[in-house]
C-alpha cells in the first residue's frame, strides 16, 4: 500500500535543504495532514492529486496490455478503447508528453488510511470485478484479488475446506487487500503470508509471472521472495490472484465464547492457552466497546474471547476441556454465541458497515501477558483524547496478540496522526510490543530497519526497472 513509495518520499524530503531544518517527525506530520503552514502550497496540491484514470479490471490480459502501454512497450492504440475513452485516456495521462506514470492498485477496503504520496499521474486499477475463486481437489484455492474474504470463506466451507485465516477486524476486505491494503488477516497458527502458496502476478514488463508454487510450499527454491514481499507485494509486481493454502473441514466445529471481567485475568488465560498444545483455528478477542458493535443485542462483558475449534466428534469434548482449563478465570462460558465470521454474507456486511465507522490507527503486536495492561492504557488514552477507545485482537500460537485499537472519532488526518502518535507512545512503554502501522514505519529510525528498508527499495528498483508499479517519486 505505497509503503516504499511513502518511505522513499520522506527519505528524499528530509535531505532537501529547504526542508532539512524541519525534523523528520514534523515533516511526516506536515505531509500526512497536508499542512500548508509548513509545506509549500504547490507541493500540497501535488500530493492531493489523485490518479486521473481508474480502470475496472475484468481480465488480467487488460492489465498486461496496460502495463505495456505504461512502460512504453506499446502504444495506447493497443488498448482497444472506444474513440471517446481513447481521447480521455490520452488527455488525462498526458500520453505523448515526457513524464513518467505508473499503475497503482486500489484496495477494496482500507482499515486505516490512504497513502501519503498517491499515484498522481498514472492509472488506478480497480479489481472489484475480478473476483473468481477456483478450488481444486487439494486443500487450496486460487482467489482472484478482487474476491472478498467472505466469499472465499463461505465457498470454502461449502466445498469441504476451512479458510483458517480471518480478519481480526471484521470488515468486508478483498483477498487482495492483504497484498496492497492493510487487511488484518491471520489465524492462530500464522500470519496471512504463511497461508499463501503463490501469487499470480503481472510483471513490470507485462508478463504473467508466478511467484511461489500454487500447489506446494516453496522451500528450497532460492530466495523466498514471496514471503518477503506479501504485505507490500503490489510495490514489486501487480498481483492478480493468490494461491491459498486451506485446511480440510473437520468433522465437528465449535465456537467457544468466554467472558472476562478483568484484563490481567484475560492476559494470563491467553498466555496459558498459547502455551498448551491446542491448535484452534482462530482466537478472537474483543473488549466491551468492540463486543457491543459486533453483538448490539447482547450485554457486553468487559472482555470476550471466542475460540474456534475443530476436530473429530469424539475428540471435541477433550479439546473443550483442555481449552476450558487453559482459559481459567472466565466469568461465563457459552457455546451458542455466534462468531463474527460464520454469519450470512448480508449480516457480515451490515456489521462491517458499523465497524468501519470507527477510526483505526493500525496494528500493535503485544505479548499476551501484557494485553490487559495495554488495553487499559489505550482506554485511558482514548478518554484523554475525547475519543472513546476499544480493541479488536487475535491471539497467535506464539503468544503474541495482534491488537487493533480504534477510536470513536472523526476520520480526519490530524486526528489519525495524533491518535497514532499516542498509540505509538503506549506501545513503546509496553515491553515486547511493536506498533506496525504505516506511520510507524515512517517514524522508525533504527539503523538496521533503515538498512532493510533501503535494501527493499533497491530490490523494488531492480525488479521494476520500468518504473511502472507504483513508481517511486521524490519531492
Amino acid at each position: 500500500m505505497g509503503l516504499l513509495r511513502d518511505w522513499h518520499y520522506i527519505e528524499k524530503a528530509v535531505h532537501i535543504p529547504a526542508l532539512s531544518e524541519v525534523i523528520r517527525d514534523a515533516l511526516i506530520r506536515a505531509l500526512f495532514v497536508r499542512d500548508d503552514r509548513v509545506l509549500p502550497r504547490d507541493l500540497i496540491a501535488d500530493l492531493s492529486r489523485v490518479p486521473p484514470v481508474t480502470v475496472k479490471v475484468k481480465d488480467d490480459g487488460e492489465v498486461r496490455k496496460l502495463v505495456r502501454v505504461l512502460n512504453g512497450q506499446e502504444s495506447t492504440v493497443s488498448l482497444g478503447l472506444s474513440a471517446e475513452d481513447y481521447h480521455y485516456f490520452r488527455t488525462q495521462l498526458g500520453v505523448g508528453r515526457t513524464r513518467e506514470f505508473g499503475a497503482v492498485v486500489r484496495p477494496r477496503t482500507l482499515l486505516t488510511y490512504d497513502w501519503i504520496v498517491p499515484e498522481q499521474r498514472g492509472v488506478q486499477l480497480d479489481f472489484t470485478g475480478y473476483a473468481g475463486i477456483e478450488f481444486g481437489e487439494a486443500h487450496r484455492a486460487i482467489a482472484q484479488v478482487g474476491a472478498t474474504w467472505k466469499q472465499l470463506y463461505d465457498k470454502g466451507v461449502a466445498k469441504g475446506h476451512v479458510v483458517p485465516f480471518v480478519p481480526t477486524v471484521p470488515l468486508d476486505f478483498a483477498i487482495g487487500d492483504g497484498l496492497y491494503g492493510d487487511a488484518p488477516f491471520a489465524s492462530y497458527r500464522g500470519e496471512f503470508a504463511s497461508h499463501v502458496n503463490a501469487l499470480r502476478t503481472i510483471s513490470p514488463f507485462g508478463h504473467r509471472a508466478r511467484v511461489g508454487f500454487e500447489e506446494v510450499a516453496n522451500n528450497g527454491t532460492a530466495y523466498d521472495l514471496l514471503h518477503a514481499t506479501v504485505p507490500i507485494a503490489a510495490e514489486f509486481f501487480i498481483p492478480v490472484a493468490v494461491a491459498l493454502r486451506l485446511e480440510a473441514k473437520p468433522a465437528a466445529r465449535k465456537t467457544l465464547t468466554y467472558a472476562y471481567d478483568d484484563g490481567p485475568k484475560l492476559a494470563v488465560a491467553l498466555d496459558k492457552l498459547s502455551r498448551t498444545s491446542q491448535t484452534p483455528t482462530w482466537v478472537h478477542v474483543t473488549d466491551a466497546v468492540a463486543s457491543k458493535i459486533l453483538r448490539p443485542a447482547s450485554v457486553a462483558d468487559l472482555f470476550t474471547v471466542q475460540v474456534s475449534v475443530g476436530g473429530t466428534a469424539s475428540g471435541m469434548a477433550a479439546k473443550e476441556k483442555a481449552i476450558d482449563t487453559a482459559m481459567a478465570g472466565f466469568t461465563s462460558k457459552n457455546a451458542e454465541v455466534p462468531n463474527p465470521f460464520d454469519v450470512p454474507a448480508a449480516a457480515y456486511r451490515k456489521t462491517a458497515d458499523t465497524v468501519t465507522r470507527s477510526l483505526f490507527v493500525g496494528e500493535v503486536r503485544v505479548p499476551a501477558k501484557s494485553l490487559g495492561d495495554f488495553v487499559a492504557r489505550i482506554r485511558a488514552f482514548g478518554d484523554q483524547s475525547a475519543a472513546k477507545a476499544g480493541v479488536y485482537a487475535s491471539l497467535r500460537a506464539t503468544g503474541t496478540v495482534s491488537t487493533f485499537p480504534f477510536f470513536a472519532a472523526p476520520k480526519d488526518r490530524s486526528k489519525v496522526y495524533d491518535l497514532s502518535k499516542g498509540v505509538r507512545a503506549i506501545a513503546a512503554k509496553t515491553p515486547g510490543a511493536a506498533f506496525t502501522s504505516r506511520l510507524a514505519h515512517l517514524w522508525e529510525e533504527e539503523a538496521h530497519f533503515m538498512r532493510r528498508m533501503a535494501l527493499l527499495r533497491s530490490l523494488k528498483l531492480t525488479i521494476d526497472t520500468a518504473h511502472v508499479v507504483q513508481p517511486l517519486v521524490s519531492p
Partner: protein
Amino acid sequence: MASLDYAYRRLVNTLGPERVARSEFERMVYSHDFASLPKVALLQWKLYPDFVALPQTTEEVAALVKLSDESLLQITPRGGGTGWYGGSVPNRGGVLIDMRKMNHIVAFDPDGRTVTVEAGATWKDLDDFVESKGFALPIVPVNAIGSTVGGAINSGSTGFGAPRGGSLCDAIRRLLVVLPDGSLLKTASEADADGHLANLTPLFFGAEGTLGIITEATLRVVPKPEAAKAIAYAFPSLAAAARFLREIVDSALVPYHAALASRDHFIFERALRPDSPDPADIALVAVHGSKDEVADQERTVDGLAAKENGAKLVPAVTDQLWRDRYNNYSARRLSRGLVTSYNLIPVGRLPEAVDRAVEIRDKLKLNGAVQAFLVDSTTAALVPYVLMDDTRPSGGTALGFVKRMGDAAFKMDGHSMGLGLFLVFNLRKMHGRATSFISSVKVVFDPRKKINGGKTLEVWTKYPWPGLRSIPPPGMAVGLEIAAILRRAKPTRDRFVRAYEHGKEE
C-alpha cells in the same frame, strides 16, 4: 589477485594459525558435501578450497569477508555439510568458512519464547538444550544430527513438526547476517512483528549462503506437549501407505509428524543392524496434545490405517523407529556413496509420486528406497535415495536419478528442492518468468558475487577464461540426462546388499 601466501598470512593474522588450514588433507575433506561426486567433476570445478577458516565470532566472519576484498578469493560458507547439491562446496577454490566453531547458545528467553543460537550449532544439540528448558522447537530438520542451524536455514529445509509447527521460515524470529560488504544486518525487528517492519528473513531462507553469512539465529520455541505418542503401521504396499498419509490431511488431523519409508529402506537397515524392524512399507505418525486428545487422535489414525489394511506395529518397534528418526541414510555405509533427491509434491498426488519414484529407480537399475513425509495441508516431501559407488566408472551415472526425479516432481505440479552447484538448471523450471525477480535479489545484496558466487542462479567453472567461465544451466541438465541414459543402458544392476536382492525376489 593477491598471492595465496599473502592471503594466508592475512587470514592467520585475523584468526590465528590454529584456525586456518591449507593442508591437502583438510582441503579434501571440505571438497564435497553429503552427496558423492564422481572424480570427473574436478575437471569442471576447483572443489578443493585454497584455505579453510574456522571463525568463532561474528566479528571474525565480518573480518574474513572484508579480507576477500584484498585477496579477491571467493568465499564459501559451510555448516554441517549435509547438503546434497554442492551448495557448500567451492567451485573456484577460495576461502571456505566452516561455521561449526560458532555453536553456542547465545540467549534463551522463556517469556518471549525464543532461543538465540550461533549458526554452527547442530539442530540436535539445540533441540536437546531447548528440551532441557521445558520447551521444544516447532520444527526440526530431517538431518538434525549433522545439520547446523545456519545450514538448514540456507537450504530452506523442512522436517519434523512441520504439519503442526509450520515452515522453518516461520520459526525464525530474526537472523544476524554478515553481508558481502562485511557489515552486519539484523533481518527483522527485535519485537515479534512478523512480516512487518521490513522483515527480510525469508530472503535468506533457501538462499544457499549466496546473500551473506548467517552467524546467529533467533528462533521461536514452543512449550513441550502435554502428551506425545508415535504410532507405526506396516502396509501391504507403498501406495497404500501414501494414501494413508493423504487421508490424514483430508481428515483434518494435524499430526506432529507423518512419514513413510519403503520396504527397501528397512532391508538396507536390516543388512546393517540385525535388530532393525522387519522390512515392510511402514508409515510412522506422531501426535501431540492433551492425554485425552492423543488417545482420540490415535483411534482416528488407527481407523485410517485400517482402511488401507495397515497393521499396527508393536510399541517396541515404533519406539525404535521414533528414536532413530534422524538416521535416514545409514544405507550409505553399504555402498561408497548415496544420492538423494529431495522434492515437494502435492499431498493429493503422493500415491502416484511414490510409485513414480520406484519406477524411475528400477528403470535406471539402481538400488534405493523411497521416503516421504507431510509438510503441510497441501505439500508432502518426497525423498527417495539411491546407492552409488563413485569409484566405479558407472558410479556417477546414478546422479541421473536426481534429474529424472526432479522432472517427475515438476510434472506433478511440485518441484525439486535445492539448486546448489548441480541443479541450477531447475531454477527456470521453478520460477518461469519470475526467475528475473529471484535473480534481482542477488544483484541487490551481492552485486560483486563475492559470497558463494556461481551457484544457485548460475554455474561457474574453475576456468577464468571467457567462454569457459560458466556453463549454461541447461548444459548441466543435458549432462545429467546423459548420465541417466547411460545408467539405463547399463546391462546390470549394482549389487550392494545380497539381502536386498533376495528381498526383491521374494
